[in-house]
């Protein structure tokens, strides 16, 4: 019985031990151990695959696929040396992800087989807030896989790419320049005249040169004081036109009675385009013949001018410093017998403030000068300074008079040089046909002229990034004396300003400028009778361009009639306007970049539309390509899993 007890106990111990051992063995999870080993292996596979992928170049893939991509996308043969992550980035940027998927499949599956077949994988491009799936063996993003045991990933960084955006592009800027083929010029007749007793004639002859291929428009404004009784005997000849005085549209007419004698003051306009266009390029000639009246010389009033707009192929010439002759018009006083006559003319002289005057010389050649006893037959004034008086001058008077000091001392204002031959103001005593001689076309050196030479830094004429444009504002309204003109300069920076005064009659003129809320300043006073030039220079500092209501007042102290200032008077001023825009946004094509630049320039110029005809300003773009953008960085991520 004891043996059976021990055998039974033995068996019980054995069973107990076996049961415990069995239970221990059952508790071991072999899947966990092998799963963790598989995960580690998968991780290495993923990293190794990504390492290789990162080192492969575009030229390493299937050649047929590579050529197909080059043929059908924006990639070129220049890209064959790029790494595959860069190629994926490029194709993703160009929205050619199907080709990117083909590369991925080619490398990681067949034939590259960097990922074993028993794994699934996906490649995506991941930005900070967006992820694009390029390729997945299951067709879906692994995060959406329903049954996924293990997932590992490896990433590489790529910069310079953004989805659906070209990585390189074009940028443009644009600037405006004047169309150089259209030019405009104004040829002015300053007050001048001659003859005196009735029956005489004053011949005023102007020659000017145009380097023109075609005259688009030429308008003559003519303001004269002439005898009434012979009013139909005057003439106007333009080149080979014959007398066209009958074509003048006389806008203003006024008669002046002095000592019972009548004279006419008339202002009119006439189109002379066709006459000049008969031979547009070369010298042109305009002759005005006016008949004189009793006790009054016949002459040109302020406002007489020719405005020409023309096309040109002008070859530019060197103008390093300013050195120019301003020719007088030829003024002939024609009379019969010993009737009184004489010739006179004025010329404005203006030199910029910053200029260094090197030379200012008057060359005067007067013909048929009458030697009147006790009279100063030649008189020359610089403003109100008598600078030359000649008695007994000889029939032909030819002299050079140095004006340098006078001009140098009076810069930045309009100076008036007055030349009198056998006359002074309303006093005429000549008994020969005196003439202020000038023929710049055929005899330039013998002509009467003022030579001005000064050094002026060209930098004063240019402001970087701006072009100088000219605005012309007519006084408009009615003829009146005094006449006010109010201008708002819209805060433009004015570089220069010129006043063109047109009058029906002219004696002593005062021009003032009154800027908004500031003191009125006098900018010009006639020094003598009829010494108002057709153009007056006004220093821009007289204006307050930041405010409205800059008032220009032109008044004449006419003792007799109104001496009306005409609405055809005008203010011409130059301003700098911004003429360029810098490089802007990047565009895929050069055409888009150019259009953007021109649009931005148009926006800039539109602020000046009131004084600009945008159509005449050529806008040129300049473009630079191959400009990259710092898109990214982004991750190119390879995810590998086993379901």
């Amino acid at each position: 019985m004891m043996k059976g007890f021990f055998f039974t106990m033995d068996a019980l111990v054995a069973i107990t031990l076996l049961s415990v051992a069995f239970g221990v063995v059952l508790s071991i999870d072999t899947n966990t151990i092998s799963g963790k080993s598989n995960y580690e292996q998968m991780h290495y596979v993923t990293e190794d695959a990504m390492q290789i992928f990162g080192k492969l170049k575009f030229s390493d893939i299937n050649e047929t696929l590579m050529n197909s991509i080059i043929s059908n996308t924006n990639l070129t043969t220049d890209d064959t040396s790029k790494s595959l992550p860069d190629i994926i980035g490029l194709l993703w940027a160009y929205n050619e992800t199907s080709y990117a998927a083909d590369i991925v499949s080619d490398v990681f599956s067949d034939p590259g087989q960097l990922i074993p077949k028993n794994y699934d994988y996906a490649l995506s491009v991941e930005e900070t807030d967006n992820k694009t799936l390029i390729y997945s063996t299951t067709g879906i993003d692994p995060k959406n896989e329903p049954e996924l045991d293990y997932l590992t990933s490896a990433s590489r960084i790529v910069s310079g790419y953004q989805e659906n955006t070209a990585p390189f592009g074009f940028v443009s800027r644009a600037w405006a320049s004047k169309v150089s083929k259209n030019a405009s010029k104004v040829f002015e007749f300053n007050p001048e005249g001659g003859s005196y007793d009735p029956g005489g004639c004053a011949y005023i002859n102007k020659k000017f040169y145009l380097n023109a291929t075609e005259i688009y428009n030429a308008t003559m404004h003519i303001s004269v004081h002439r005898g009434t009784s012979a009013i139909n005997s005057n003439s106007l000849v333009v080149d080979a036109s014959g007398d066209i005085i009958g074509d003048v549209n006389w806008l203003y007419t006024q008669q002046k009675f002095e000592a019972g004698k009548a004279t006419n003051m008339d202002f009119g306009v006439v189109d002379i385009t066709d006459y000049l266009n008969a031979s547009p390029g070369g010298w042109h000639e305009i002759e005005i013949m006016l008949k004189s009246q009793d006790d009054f010389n016949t002459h040109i009033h302020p406002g007489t001018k020719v405005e020409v707009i023309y096309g040109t192929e002008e070859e530019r010439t060197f103008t390093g410093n300013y050195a120019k002759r301003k020719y007088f018009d030829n003024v002939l006083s024609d009379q019969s017998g010993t009737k009184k006559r004489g010739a006179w003319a004025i010329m404005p002289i203006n030199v910029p403030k910053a200029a260094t005057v090197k030379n200012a010389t008057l060359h005067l050649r007067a013909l048929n000068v009458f030697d009147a006893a006790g009279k100063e037959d030649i008189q020359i004034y610089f403003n109100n300074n008598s600078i030359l008086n000649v008695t007994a001058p000889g029939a032909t008077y030819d002299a050079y008079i140095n004006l340098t000091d006078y001009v140098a001392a009076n810069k930045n204002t309009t100076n008036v040089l007055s030349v009198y031959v056998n006359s002074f103001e309303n006093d005429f005593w000549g008994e020969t046909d005196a003439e202020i001689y000038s023929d710049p076309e055929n005899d330039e050196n013998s002509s009467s002229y003022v030579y001005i030479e000064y050094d002026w830094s060209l930098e004063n004429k240019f402001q970087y990034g701006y072009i100088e444009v000219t605005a012309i504002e007519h006084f408009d309204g009615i003829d009146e004396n005094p006449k006010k003109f109010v201008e708002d300069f819209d805060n433009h920076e004015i570089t220069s300003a010129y006043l063109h005064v047109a009058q029906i009659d002219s004696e002593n003129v005062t021009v003032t400028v009154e800027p908004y809320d500031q003191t009125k300043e006098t900018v010009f006073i006639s020094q003598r009778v009829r010494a108002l030039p057709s153009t007056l220079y006004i220093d821009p500092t007289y204006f307050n361009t930041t405010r409205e209501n800059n008032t220009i007042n032109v008044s004449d102290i006419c003792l007799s009639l109104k001496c009306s200032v005409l609405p055809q008077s005008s203010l011409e001023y130059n301003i700098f306007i911004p003429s360029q825009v810098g490089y802007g946004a990047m565009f895929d094509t050069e055409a888009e970049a150019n259009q953007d630049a021109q649009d931005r320039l148009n926006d800039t110029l539109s602020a000046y539309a009131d004084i600009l005809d945008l159509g005449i300003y050529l806008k040129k773009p300049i473009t630079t390509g191959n400009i990259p953008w710092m898109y990214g960085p982004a991750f190119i991520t390879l995810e590998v899993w086993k379901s």
Partner: protein
Amino acid sequence: MMKKGFVYTMFTIVAVSSIFLVLALNMDKTSTHTTKIIEKIRADEVHYLVEGIEKDIKRSGEISGRRALLALINWEISNGEFVNVANESVKEAIINGTINNGNENLTLMENNTISDWMQTLETLAKKRGLKTTILIPNTTVSMESPYTLRVSTNAHIQAQDEIIEVSYKRNTTYSNIVSVDNLEDPFITVKSYGYAKQNFIECEKITGIANSGDWVYGFAYITDENNLLNVTDKADKVLITGTVAGKSNFNGFAGIVTEQNDAPTAPPYVFNVTNAKNIILNNSIMVIDNETVWLTNITTQPNASCYFNKRDAPSFLSRLEGKNNTDNDLGIAAFIHVPSLPVEMQSGSDTYVIGYEYFEGLFD
């Protein structure tokens, strides 16, 4: 007998207990191994991130380098000014997108600087529980060639896994070669008050073998005539011919280019220029520069200009500073068409002049 049974039982208990002990020890080891795998994987991720940064930082340098040049040029041509120290300005633009020591932002560098790149990278890495720190203690900018710059950068890269506290550091030095190709020349634009504009486009060139080591230019005069006595304005022309052997009166030309090897001549020369007569455009302006013949293809009509090497001319960096000379031999120059300028800027009688020389003395 009882004792034997007891011994056998005890033996069995000890043996089985030993087996249990071994099994238990193995289970602990598996758990530790798993933790190590996770750490290894994260460490790999940090490592490869640093490696990726090291590779990609160079790409970001390429992008920001090219854009920095564009941005600086844009600033200069918009303001009509030059920078004081060009290489420092390029460096500041690349890293910070500013100019004049941070006083002004360069609009074209917005979102395009190295700093912007680093910031985006930090955001990306953070999504994966990684922290990146990149320091750039030193960047130098210098001329590499007449048409390229070298931007050399030291970078300290650190990536850190904040969970398992693994950190990886690397110091790296990289260089980018940044091209100035097709960028606008600010020197010409600013000096001409905006009236002349040129892009840096290198002229075509051909080379010979024997040369006199000179730099000259002139209009190409292609001929094989033997007696060159009656050729006018020789001093403005470069003779292009098969050989000067047997020819007379060729002294007086600005230069000579032959297709064959010739004996040295008095005028500057380049010999052995293959197919020169067919490649060079007759009456075009050309430059002889030692063994190189630069072809501008400019004839008498206004044409897009291109740049050629001229050692004493301002280099690209000198042009950014508005200087008309250079402290290296990497100067470049181009011709400009004088009649295309405003009248007030036209000086002299030549139709084409070397741009930087012309504008430098224009308003003196």
